[in-house]
């Protein structure tokens, strides 16, 4: 009797532990978003630039936004659209830009709302899963520089997800 109750309790505890994890693993945390923003700022310091950054979750909703000290009026909105593009197509926005060039098969995707064929958006990958994206606008290196800054942010966010169990496709 004593043993059976122990087994039941252990089973219940295991179920409780596993259930919320299944939900939590796909959700980008505020802590991860903060780590991404800090990493982009570190990149900007080396770069000598003043970028604006947006971090979106997998739904495309804003988790974090940070406007540069001397940001041009378009920077923050552009950072969001770059992140939105990377999250939607599950690839760097610079790669989707090249894949959707006029004349190519995917060209019509450029008609979709909110996407932008410009480099600077990078998905946050945990295993094969996209849990959100980082968008950067305003570094020194143009679209390649913005992509490198966003990559630094996405890497920092993904790193914090390591150690957690992640569903593989």
């Amino acid at each position, binding site marked *: 009797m004593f043993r059976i109750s122990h087994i039941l309790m252990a089973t219940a505890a295991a179920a409780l532990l596993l259930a919320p994890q299944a939900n939590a693993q796909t959700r980008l945390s*505020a802590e991860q978003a903060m780590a991404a923003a800090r990493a982009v*700022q570190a990149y900007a310091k080396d770069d000598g630039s003043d970028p604006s950054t947006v971090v979106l979750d997998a739904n495309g909703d*804003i988790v*974090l936004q*940070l406007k540069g000290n001397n940001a041009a009026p378009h920077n923050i909105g552009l950072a969001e659209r770059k992140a939105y593009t990377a999250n939607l197509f599950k690839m760097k926005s610079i790669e989707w830009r090249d894949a959707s060039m006029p004349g190519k098969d995917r060209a019509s995707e450029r008609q979709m709302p909110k996407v932008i064929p410009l480099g600077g958006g990078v998905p946050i990958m945990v295993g094969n899963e996209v849990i959100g994206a980082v968008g950067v606008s305003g570094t020194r290196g143009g679209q390649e520089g913005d992509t490198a800054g966003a990559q630094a942010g996405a890497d920092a966010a993904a790193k914090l997800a390591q150690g957690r169990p992640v569903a593989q496709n």
Partner: protein
Amino acid sequence: MEKLVRGFALVAFGAFVVGAGYGLVQQMVKISTLQSLSNNDISVEQALMVAEGAIDACKKDNSVISVAVVDRNGMVRFLLRGDGASPEMADNARKKAYTARTFRQNVSTWMERTAIDAKDDKGKPIDLNGQQYLENTLAEPGGVPIVRYADAIGGIGVTGAKGGPMADEACAQAGVDAIADQLL
């Protein structure tokens, strides 16, 4: 002959001094009359420190908060949606920050001043309740202005503290305190 050269050099030098002085005065007049504005504003690094100060203060009772920091124009410098919070919660944090910035006082203080029955020191009705109808304002405590030399350079707004709106305001104040040495 030597005297002549010396005299000529003196005249040339004098002309140079007069010309340079004239140019300098002209430049000074230009600067004092045509200078563009240069205002203090909360920086990216300061905004991150303020936000982290508020988050740390609210961690004491395991509160998960959303934080907004607005600049001197009331525009978002920094915004962070807390885990599990709705986008509306993050936007309410922005509104609190905006309200504190634009009225240069804690939102709780502003609410007392703009209450329907608010009265001044002499018991005379203040009648500022109309301010609560301005767009982007929110009459809920949790917003604190960021003030440097009596100049509001930004504001912070917090939502989601377990203790309710007044606890939001305490966390917001802790955030501003984190850069107190830079606001002297």
